């Protein structure tokens, strides 16, 4: 009756509410009463996330290091090599190739090597002919080290003298095989039935490691002694940094206008960058292990929350008696679980960053933790917490509100 309703001042039912701010306070208080347990279960998440952050951080650092090295060497190096004919035979670059490329615009520097296929190099004539050590002999332009960005470990590179006398420079790998670490004095190698003086040893060539296992002599000597034809087996050139694309497009027709299809152009830094990218990805297995740790952590949190719900039956009953809805109860436990795991996530981020820092310091590599990890680590913790808390929270919400009255 409307009269009766008017007589009852509070006939309308108030709404049970739990403001968000209060929710966080309530959840924090819930965690704070069981501190040790909260810390231990957050630790599980911290280890999992820490492992993943460390894996990502370490591989990013290693990758950044390799990329920095490539950058220092320059990404504007292009190589020109003979391609293959339709039938699979090797093409031959014209003997005018180098001169043609020399005249191109936006080419800063170029060098060529010419394969000397009929000569091998040995330490002495007594070494059996078959034991070549995998060392190739090439004739090379004088400026090859400059174009390749390769320094000399010892001695000097080929020069004017080498055009007339038998002088040789060893690649890093070749020097190791021949057991020659220093040039100078009277170090000789036996090259194609002639003694050559070793005048220099190169450092490792990062941009083209095939050069490491070669021994270099000058083209005039090679032409004279081994009848090498002046058709380059490989040309290296530095393009203007901003015109690498256009130079690369013009290289084939410039090198061999009659048969541009027989010319192959490539950019070695691309391959290296791909390798760097691969270095950033070889860690899938380790990431998987981090994932397993995370899963274990999540189960730990779910376990702790289930126990917590069982222990706090009367608290839950009390809260229901005080006006909490089922939803309030489940949200409270979900929040506790999510906070626990998010705290674990932040701790894991710090752990992982610390591990990366230690690695970077010992390896002298740049310290890099990807920016996304700063957000992803706590967010992952939060999501894991929510998922792990779903079951316990539902269990808490389904408890009878009479628990507080039944227990004494």
């Amino acid at each position, binding site marked *: 009756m409307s009269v*009766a*309703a008017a*007589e*009852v001042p*509070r*006939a309308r*039912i*108030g*709404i*049970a*509410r*739990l*403001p968000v*701010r*209060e929710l966080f*306070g*309530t959840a924090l*208080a819930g965690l*704070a*009463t069981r501190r040790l347990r909260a810390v231990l279960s957050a630790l599980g998440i911290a280890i999992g996330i820490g492992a993943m952050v460390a894996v990502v951080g370490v591989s990013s650092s290693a990758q950044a290091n390799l990329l920095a090295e490539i950058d220092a060497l320059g990404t504007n190096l292009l190589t020109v090599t003979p391609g293959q004919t339709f039938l699979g035979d090797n093409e031959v670059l014209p003997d005018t190739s180098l001169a043609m490329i020399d005249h191109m615009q936006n080419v800063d520097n170029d060098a060529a090597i010419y394969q000397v296929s009929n000569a091998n190099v040995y330490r002495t004539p007594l070494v059996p002919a078959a034991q070549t050590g995998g060392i190739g002999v090439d004739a090379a332009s004088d400026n090859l080290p400059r174009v390749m960005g390769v320094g000399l470990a010892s001695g000097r590179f080929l020069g004017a003298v080498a055009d007339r006398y038998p002088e040789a420079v060893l690649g890093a790998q070749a020097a190791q095989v021949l057991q020659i670490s220093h040039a100078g004095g009277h170090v000789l190698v036996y090259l194609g039935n002639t003694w050559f003086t070793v005048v220099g040893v190169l450092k490792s060539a990062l941009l083209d490691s095939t050069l490491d296992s070669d021994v270099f002599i000058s083209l005039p000597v090679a032409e004279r002694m081994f009848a090498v034809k002046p058709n380059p087996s490989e040309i290296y050139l530095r393009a203007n940094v901003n015109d690498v694309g256009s130079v690369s497009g013009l290289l084939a027709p410039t090198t061999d206008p009659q048969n541009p299809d027989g010319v192959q152009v490539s950019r070695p830094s691309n391959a290296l960058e791909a390798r760097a990218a691969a270095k950033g990805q070889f860690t899938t297995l380790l990431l998987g292990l981090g994932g397993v740790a995370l899963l274990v952590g999540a189960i730990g949190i779910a376990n702790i929350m289930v126990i917590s719900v069982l222990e706090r039956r*009367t*608290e839950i*009953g*009390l*809260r*229901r*008696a*005080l*006006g*909490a*809805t*089922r*939803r*309030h109860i489940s949200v409270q436990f979900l929040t506790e679980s999510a906070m626990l795991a998010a705290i674990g996530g932040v701790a894991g981020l710090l752990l992982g960053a610390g591990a990366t820092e230690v690695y970077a310091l010992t390896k002298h590599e740049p310290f890099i933790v990807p920016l996304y990890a700063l957000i992803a680590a706590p967010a992952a913790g939060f999501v894991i917490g929510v998922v792990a808390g779903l079951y316990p929270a539902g269990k808490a919400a389904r408890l*009878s*509100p*009479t628990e*507080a*009255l*039944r*227990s*004494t």
Partner: protein
Amino acid sequence: MSHTVTALALHGVVKEYPGGVTALRGVSVEIGRGEQVAVVGPSGSGKTTMLTIMGTLERPTAGEVCVGERDLASVSDADLAGLRAHEIGFVFQAFHLQEAMTAVDNVALGMLYTGEPLRQRREAARAALERVGLAHRLDFKPKQLSGGERQRVAIARAIAKRPLIILADEPTGNLDSASGGEVIRLLHDLAEDGATLGLITHDESIASGFARRLQMRDGEIVADVRS
């Protein structure tokens, strides 16, 4: 229609639990606003079950429950929680105070689900603690309080929101007779302010202090005595 306004009414309330236990077998009672009622009876007579149904913690298997002249059958669970948050205060035998919280925060917890901000809740909590004579114990934790003081904190928690109905289940059950008497006097005083009081006890001397007594046995009200 010559009735005073009804605060609480049960009509033919039956409560059965799974397993064939019947706790209430058709209970009907009307309690007016401001009335003070003691419920007595041996254990297992259905006193606590009646209290949980009056307090909307459980729904009856059959029958009608009205709080403030509103039939609760069609009211959603969430609205029942709202009703408890705003209109009903519980006092338990075991106090159920949160050990980690101070007296003020325990009392403020009683208003948590009204949605009032913490500052206001604390203010109301301080006033309620003063009302129960614990103004000097505001920042004490339950472990630092005597049993009687703890129950007074729990009573303050029940009254801080100025509920329509206060329901107490053996509030003196864990107390010695001196502090028990004090708690009962306090509840009487508080109910004088206009709240309806329903109190379960098996102590005849406590029950005799109430103007109306419901005697329960085997899930039924066997006597409804007014003096």
